[in-house]
């Protein structure tokens, strides 16, 4: 029973986050975004009563999970702590970052507030650097309308290169389309081409140098450009997280005892 999960790396990684998958038809979706944008409303609207709450392993940050079924798949929705960035300034940001970076969810939905899109876009751009499995949900469209703010969804989609869905989560509007897009991205019928930010040359040169080093340990499990950027910024927690989640280690995989995957 004590299988080393080298054959199922994804499961092993998910094990770090206490997610138990029952079969292949289950997909893991992360829900990210700033605080106070209606993220929890989206979460509740999608999962209904099928949710349970707990803590992130080893952290005092609470986490909520829930399921919903869409078409032939079962979706496990993980509500990440509301954060303004993924720069690991706080425990919340570190949790959110580690989950998207190392947990590798099948899709990440980023919820934003239509009334202050500019501030919200920062975390969207950061997550876009990290993964191309991403759907943007522009929530609170009714409030924006009341304040006379109009968001051109089509244009936003073009600019970002990822699917964008406008929602009014409180009234359940746009959620079907959100589930549909999430489904498409998660199983790969639809692909994205997230716009990447180009940094000044001084930064790009350094990214290349560090990325090269990272190749040695990543074996395609890490987004080296992204990790390099974090290291450039002096984020020491990044090294801790790589050590914890991404190194080939017998003990790391066996930490949870038996492989939860079954057999």
């Amino acid at each position, binding site marked *: 029973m004590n299988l080393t999960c080298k054959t199922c790396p994804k499961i092993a990684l998910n094990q770090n986050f206490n997610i138990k998958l029952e079969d292949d038809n289950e997909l893991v979706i992360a829900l990210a975004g700033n605080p106070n944008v209606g993220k929890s409303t989206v979460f509740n609207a999608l999962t209904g009563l099928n949710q349970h709450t707990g803590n992130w392993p080893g952290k005092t940050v609470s986490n909520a999970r829930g399921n919903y079924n869409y078409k032939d798949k079962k979706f496990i929705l993980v509500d990440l702590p509301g954060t303004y960035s993924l720069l690991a300034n706080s*425990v919340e940001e570190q949790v959110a970052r580690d989950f998207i970076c190392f947990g590798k969810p099948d899709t990440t939905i980023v919820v934003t507030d239509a009334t202050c899109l500019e501030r919200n876009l920062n975390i969207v751009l950061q997550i876009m650097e990290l993964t191309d499995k991403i759907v943007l949900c522009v929530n609170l469209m009714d409030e924006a309308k009341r304040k*006379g703010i109009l968001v*051109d969804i089509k244009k936003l989609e073009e600019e970002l290169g990822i699917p964008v869905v406008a929602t009014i989560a409180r009234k359940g509007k746009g959620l079907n389309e959100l589930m549909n897009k999430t489904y498409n991205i998660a199983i790969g019928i639809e692909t994205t081409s997230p716009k990447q930010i180009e940094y000044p040359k001084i930064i790009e040169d350094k990214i290349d140098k560090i990325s090269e080093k990272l190749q040695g*340990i990543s074996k395609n499990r890490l987004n080296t450009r992204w990790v390099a950027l974090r290291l450039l910024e*002096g984020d020491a927690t990044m*090294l801790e997280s790589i050590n914890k989640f991404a190194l080939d280690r017998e003990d790391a995989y066996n930490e949870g005892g038996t492989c939860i995957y079954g057999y």
Partner: protein
Amino acid sequence: MRGELVYMGTSENKNEYDIMESLKDTLDREKNEQLKDIVVGSIYAEAEKITRDVVTKNSGKKVDLDKKLDDILTSKYTGFPIMFLLLGIIFWITIVGSNLPSEMLSNLFFGIEEHLTDWFMYMNTPQWLYGILILGIYRTLAWVISVMLPPMAIFFPLFTFLEDLGYLPRVAFNLDKLFKKAGAHGKQSLTMSMGFGCNAAGIIACRIIESPRERLIAMITNNFVPCNGRFPTLIALSTIFLSGLVAAQFSNLAASLLVSVLVLFSIIVTLAISWLLSKTWLKGVPSSFTLELPPYRKPQLGRILYTSIIDRTIFVLGRAIAIAAPAGIIIWFLANINIGGNSILNHSAAFLQPFANLIGLDGFILMAFILGFPANEIVLPILIMSYMAEGAMLELDSIQAMKELFVDNGWTWLTTLNFMLFTLFHFPCGTTLWTIKKECGSNKWTLLSAIIPTVAGVIILFIITQLARFLI
């Protein structure tokens, strides 16, 4: 950098280990900060560009107004002067406004005291009971209420008004940078602002700071800013302090300016001590955070009056009365039980006198601070009681009477100034210390939170006193 990395890998992972080690070299704080600014700057620029392309605003008037206000209130140049000005205006209104009601209240209580005295005489009450009840408890309560109630009833609604308006987060924003420079957490500006209300509340608020190091700094230094219990003392004393020095028509203005300066000074000392702690016992690098500036709101007058009158004024006054009444009895006993021809109070004060003299106070003042440990509100009433029990049965009247009482007991401008400074910088009240103990769970840090402010206060007072005595 936080702690050492521990590699649990086997020998075949040696290669990975080496790579990780070499990656550590890229972590260089100074350089990283600059690079981080460039990276974050690029992301912000991109977000701004995209927003310009996809968002159109029809009537963003309110948002624009908010932004313009924020530009002024949190600007590098105008932010601090406006903060100082607002503070000054609030104190000015408080001081001017509380003069008359204070006098009316004390007249009223004095009138009642006369009747009570008559009644006690009529009932042939023994002298000691009359002493405890009227001279001990009643007078203390009357002082507390007439000196403290009016300023509180004016100051708290004004303070709540600013809070309700959404101005306090802007204050925190202005101060954030300074706290970072002091090696502390930016959120300490928030917990400190709460400390102006109540230090115990400010210390509970320190939970919002995640790093234990920065939380400790915030907790230890919270007591350096004056709380609601200490503001009335400061306001009353600043009026006394300046009444002889400044022409009468300017005295209110000058007094409010003085309180503002004292508050500013308390913030400076908070920063200095935070810096000192972060350089010595609590070394480390500050972590950053995001502060969301909420939109300005129209204050709800009803709610302001309710919270400030019920939650704050009545609460603080109630606490003062609840503690002042028993304290009144204790003081009366201390002042009236004689050992070797002198009261216990006199003995204690005489014992403290040499030390008190060094820092420009007197033994009675130090005794008042020690006896006022349960609550800062009662330091001044206790002192008044001690002086009055001393002999000259002064009839309680306005602030002017208080001044005469103090002058009769040998106060100079230096004593008043020192008293105000010691009000700012001394051990926290009982409730606050108990809260610190509960929040950090360590006897050592609780003790230090009492020692550090006291030592700081003693040093400041000593320097000022010796300097003043040397120069004059």
